[in-house]
């Protein structure tokens, strides 16, 4: 099933939830609302002709005006690849955990919670694991993050 067949199939079956984005340079990129994240994920995984059973990567992005989380999924059965994105503003930074759909998401969401400060609802053990235990200088991966001993890379005028 080639990329545009997949795009057509998604547009026909998931038209309400997934809207295509054109910034994806290689694989198909869609956007969805934060609300229906978990049912969409479950639908994508259990759909007969899609079978997205493999979660490649969950990445959070701080685009200076809002948060975004990208879910990259693949299907080992039909050899398909797909990314979908959810976007939300800084102040309502909490998202449902997709751990029930793909157990692999456990540590990825834990990392997002620790480095970005996005709260993950009903995740089984949200504990700090990348940063030192006594870390109290906020969430380092945010663009606006600064800390006393953070050595910035020197800017060279061209």
């Amino acid at each position, binding site marked *: 099933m080639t990329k545009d067949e997949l795009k057509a199939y998604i547009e026909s079956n998931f038209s309400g939830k997934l809207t295509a984005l054109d910034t994806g340079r290689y694989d198909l990129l869609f956007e969805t609302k934060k609300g229906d994240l978990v049912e969409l994920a479950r639908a994508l995984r259990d759909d007969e002709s899609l079978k997205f059973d493999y979660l490649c990567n969950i990445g959070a992005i701080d685009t200076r005006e809002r948060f975004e989380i990208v879910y990259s999924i693949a299907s080992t059965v039909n050899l398909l690849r797909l990314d979908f994105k959810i976007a939300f503003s800084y102040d309502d930074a909490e998202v449902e955990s997709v751990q029930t759909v793909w157990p692999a998401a456990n540590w990825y969401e834990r990392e997002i919670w620790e480095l970005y400060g996005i709260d993950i609802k009903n995740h089984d053990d949200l504990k700090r694991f990348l940063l030192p235990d006594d870390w109290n200088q906020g969430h380092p991966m945010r663009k606006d993050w600064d800390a006393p*001993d953070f*050595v*910035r*890379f*020197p800017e*060279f*005028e*061209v």
Partner: protein
Amino acid sequence: MSDSSNVIKDIFVGLKELILGMGITGKHLGRHAVTLQYPVEKMEMPERSRGIVVLLSDKETGGLNCTSCMLCMRACPTAAIRIEAPRDENKKRQLKSFVVDNTICCFCGLCEEACNFSAIKMAPKYEFSTWTREELIWDKDKLQEMGRDVDYVDTRKKKPAKAAAAAPKADAKAEPKAEAKVEPKPEPKPEPKVEPKVEDAKPHPGADGDSKENEEK
């Protein structure tokens, strides 16, 4: 216990495999060892191997090839190179200090690729460990001295029009195989110092290893 017939067979197959394993390791007893005894025998470094960053000097005039265009400073991913070259009276940049901080340098070779005046190179030398971090922050003279005996392919378009130098030389093709002398303290060849002795650039203020503020513009 599975029935007795294949237990006996298991034992003998097992013993055969054990003896075969011992045979293989025993075979290695006769073979010559592949390791080098480091301080006595040294590994002959291939010509492209990226060791320490050195500044290359012109073969004839002995002066630095560097025209302080600061391309290497921009290319360095870890900001290990710091150049100060204020413009003198006729708008030409005079190289005041060229510092490479070997504690941060990740030996990636990007500076060598960015420089098109063949002034900087990763020499195949690796023996420069010191007792303190400060000694690893090398200034211009140390870099030039380490780079004296390093051969390089001179890719500069126009040769430096030195008053002393006559016609641009044609035989700049260095012989390909770099014979890298690797004794710890390479003494520099007696070079006639052409340009005036540049006052010793003190290491960057507050340079005490990794937590320094390198916010200079």
